[in-house]
């Protein structure tokens, strides 16, 4: 490995990998896609090392790349609406040892509902909710996504309501059930 690449990776990328991984995992929903997303991000970073070096906050710079990579790819992901059950969040497996059958069933159902609701969100909303869940404040999210603060506030709110609606589809859709104006 060229020395510069080693140095750059160690100094600029490696320290932020756990944080990137968390964000990527939340966005992608499972390990393989999260790793691919980070791989893409790192390769893009390697092509733009000067910019990465110049960044005040390399972690935000990398997250910004990751954000755009994820949004770019979201369209294609939607074209593959097959979800393997074994690709559902590994978190459910982690807790499996401690729960009884009924709890597990309820938990799995809850997770499946969450995954379905999450997948129904536009990619940008997923990113905003992810960054917020990872503890980033509005100023940081603004610098990562380039979305202005006030717009961001509104979009975050919309994202939450949208997720809630998908988690509990009876709330709104029971009142106005229709396909009007939808993508379908």
């Amino acid at each position, binding site marked *: *490995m*060229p020395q*510069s690449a080693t140095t750059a*990776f160690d100094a600029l990328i*490696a320290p932020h*990998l*756990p944080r990137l991984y968390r964000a990527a*995992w*939340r966005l992608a929903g499972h*390990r*393989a*896609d999260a*790793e*691919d*997303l*980070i*791989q893409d991000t*790192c*390769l893009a970073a*390697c*092509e733009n090392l000067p910019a990465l070096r110049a960044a005040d906050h390399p972690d935000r710079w990398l997250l910004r790349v990751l954000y755009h*990579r994820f949004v*770019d*790819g*979201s*369209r*294609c992901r939607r*074209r*593959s*609406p*097959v*979800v393997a*059950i*074994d690709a559902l*969040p590994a*978190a459910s497996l982690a*807790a499996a040892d401690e729960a009884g059958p009924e709890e597990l069933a309820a938990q799995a159902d809850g997770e499946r509902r969450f995954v379905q609701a999450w997948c129904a969100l536009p*990619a940008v909303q997923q990113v905003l909710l992810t960054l917020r*869940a990872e*503890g980033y*404040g509005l100023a940081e999210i603004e610098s990562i996504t380039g979305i202005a603060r006030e*717009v961001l*506030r509104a979009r*975050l*709110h919309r*994202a*939450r*309501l949208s*997720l*809630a*609606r998908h988690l*509990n589809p009876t709330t709104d859709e029971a009142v*106005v*059930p*229709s*396909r*009007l*104006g939808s*993508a*379908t």
Partner: protein
Amino acid sequence: MNCQELQRILDERELAELSVADQRELKRHASACADCEAALAAHDAVRAVAVPPMPAAFEQRLRRLVAAQVAVAPASRRAFGRPWLVVGLLGFGVAAATVVGLQFSGNAGNDASGADAARPASIAGEVDAPAGFRPAEPRENGAAGAGAAITAADAGGNAGEPAPTADPVPGRFTVAVSPLRQQATDPEAIRLSEVVYAALLDELRRIPNLELIALDAADVVDTSVTIQSPAAVSFEGGPASQRVFSISPNGAAEPIAGERTLVLVDSRAALAGGNGEPVVVGTGTAPVSLETIPTALSSRIESITSGTAGAVAYTGGGPLAADGDPAAGVVNVVLLNNVAGIRVDLSQTDGGFDSVPVAAGQEPMPYDFRLDVASAHAARTWSFSVSGRARSPAARFSFSAGASPGEPVEPLELAQQVIAQLQENLLPPDDSVVAGIELEVLDTTRSTEDRLAALSRLRRVEGRKDDERPIGSDIVAAVLALVPGASPEQRASIWRLLRDTNDPLLLPALGNAVRYETSDAARLEAAVSLSRFGDEPSVRAALELAARTDAAANIRQFASWATRDEAGWREHIVASLFNSSQSDAERLAPLLFEPRNYEGIQAAPASLGPALDSSVAGELAALIARQPDEAVRVQLLVRLAREDHPALTPLFLERLNADDSDRVRLTAVTALRRWIDEPAVRYGLERAAADDVSGRLRTVVETVLANGSGSAAAGTEIR
């Protein structure tokens, strides 16, 4: 606390930081405000997701990948770093009875410094053979595909050209071109393929605003699975977000389903080794059917190949699925034959990570443009197929060109035709072209027919632009002014062509058309366009009125569907089935309603799903039995087969035993095939075969009984 304060807390603070009193206050407000309660619940739900720690080995794999990436030549790095550029290159068919992954025999044009040896080993390339696979035997280099030695450099590729810039320019299109690497035994086919490839490259280079990346197949790195069989089925995976799978049967008569030898090929590991040959990770056998193939996840590849596949949750075709196939968008079926060929993947850049020219609230320009140029050579027949799809439904197109047996093959001419179609249908148009078409629409001295033809062209162009400039209000107003003097067919065109422009001028016009238009066809187009306008009270009122009172049954049907959600429509289907005050045709119409028959509507047909029980099945059986028209009975059985529900097996068995139409009985056999493991179904099929006097049904049933249920037995069916 008010809503704004609660939102601000969710945006800026950690709930745990709040004082007990503030937390109590927050919860009190949320319990009294539905929006805030929902927002809080969503906030909690996202936070509650447990994220596993990063695997320890991942960083090391990533480090190696980055090192290899930095070491490779710029063109290869560029392509590898943008996996969506190469996704289309992954769908290459694999020669029959030959274990072939992706192979190459030459260097990329600007990769003359031994970069092959330093090509990146993708982190995902470190794939262990799935359980059930035995270690692969070493294979000889050059065992297959040696004849198809086309490289970018050979074909006038990009040798000597400067490497592409690091970041794509917003709005520019990128075309990645790669030779297909198949085992070609016909030297003439190889020669022609090279000529066509060279011609395509030359033509593509002449297109302004288009960045051409002529790839060597070595740039296409991925894990792929090949089914070694006469049917030559291949599974090929891409980066997780862009997996593409293709099925490449060599002969239509040869079955794909059945027990197949599977070979897991890891071409990335080969690249790391630098010898250019795909590495066979392992081989094994597994039952395969068409239904097991639309699986877009690597885990599914592993589970299929190892025969340990569990249940699959299939969430439906989705709004982007192509017509007709519930698994569309996941599977590409490509008939290739054993011949070298060319595949071109057209993608649009969105500005890389530094800028995304996407307006607020809009999705990025879809990377849906896709140009597959597969040259098939059978008895000297060449054929090209091109299909594309853009944001605007009007921008869909398909094109094919070829030469018949006995005719002289003109590859250059064929390539030029393909390029012409590309420019005409997919590439972003020049601004002056758009302005010229707009003037034609606005030109009142032209005939209505000419102006509508111009509008049609404008909509097609609109779907190819990346700035998503809507049709202007002046255009909408000018077109609406044509309505009073237009023929019914022209009025129908107007409502269809203005679909999804969502100009405010259009809303009252569409509302009036839905109510007062005298032509059924035009009124239907207006209703469809109105339904796409948004869930506004006036829209809903107009469509609800149409659902109740429109004179045309299909308009009532569509409006009724549009104003209901999935569950509501399902209830409506069931209620109609039991509504004895209606005619049988009316009772069955909602069940047979196909939303995709309406241009611009891509929703999948509803599934009866949870509403399907024995009473519904019984009612359906009675209704079908009363249908005098054989075609209708077949249509109903095909529709119900999609439900994939065991409650319907008695119905299918009844048709199999009692129907006097061979077509209906054969359809019933097809529907029952999935349930062949049920004793009653097997018994019913055996009896039907024994009783069949013509012999035709017996042959089919015996084949079904011999082959078993395939995927169902393996537990890999798509639901």
